[in-house]
């Protein structure tokens, strides 16, 4: 086994977790917009959205635990749990730590949705877009695999698409509903 095995696992786990967060946000947006109509069913879309979120948390756990297990970069428990404590690029690491907490908050409030008011749940859930921005900034600033131009460009395009999608959702939600009056036949 390579001496840097856990270092590779940490990086790969982080990339997969980021992709899963992106997929979950996209899936949730498509679900909220009812983009596919009734097929697949909204219940299936919601179930898939939730499962992608759970997978994202699992891979964040892999990312963090592998960083702790690795001895190539020496991170302590406080370095990966407390923002700005890490000596290595503290701000870049802090984006990821805050993103991790936001992800957990979104997941926990979703699991407790039945016990929460819709307003509270929605307020926390909208933070998903902030979460995606945070982890993308973390990926670009702390990640060592985003140095090429193509991935950077792709990430910026994804960010723009997400903001556009969120704006579209907001517009769609707040738009006044227009009902066509029924014409009664005499």
């Amino acid at each position: 086994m390579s001496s840097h095995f856990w270092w590779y696992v940490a990086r790969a786990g982080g990339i997969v977790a980021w992709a899963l967060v992106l997929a979950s946000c996209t899936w949730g947006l498509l679900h909220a917009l009812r983009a596919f109509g009734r097929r697949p069913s909204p219940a299936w879309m919601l179930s898939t959205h939730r499962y992608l979120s759970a997978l994202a948390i699992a891979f964040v756990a892999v990312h963090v635990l592998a960083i702790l297990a690795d001895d190539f970069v020496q991170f302590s428990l406080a370095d990966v749990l407390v923002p700005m404590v890490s000596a290595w690029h503290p701000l870049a690491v802090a984006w990821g730590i805050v993103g991790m907490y936001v992800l957990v908050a979104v997941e926990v409030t979703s699991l407790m949705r039945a016990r929460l008011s819709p307003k509270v749940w929605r307020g926390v859930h909208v933070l998903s877009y902030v979460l995606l921005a945070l982890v993308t900034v973390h990926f670009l600033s702390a990640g060592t695999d985003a140095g090429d131009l193509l991935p950077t460009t792709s990430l910026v395009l994804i960010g723009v698409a997400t903001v556009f999608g969120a704006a579209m959702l907001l517009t769609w939600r707040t738009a006044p509903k227009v009902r066509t009056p029924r014409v009664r036949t005499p």
Partner: protein
Amino acid sequence: MARRSLSMQGRLLAVGVSVAVGSALVGVMAAGDHAADASSTNTPSTNTPSTNTPSGATGDSSGTTATPNDSRGFPTGNSGVPAQPQTRTGGS
């Protein structure tokens, strides 16, 4: 009839794809570093090594020093040793 929730096959597929992509990334990273180590050992260095003390960050199989580290053991990648792959500069 419309599906009400994600099937077990779908769940297993999602886990499988995620793990497969992660494993492939690990393989690509290891292969890239291995190739970089091989090329760096073949390139003679004219610079003097950094005064930083390496802390266990040695090459995979060549036994050469991969990247000098700072006081906390993070690879700094800014010394006079042969160029190292960017993936050795730390981070997550």
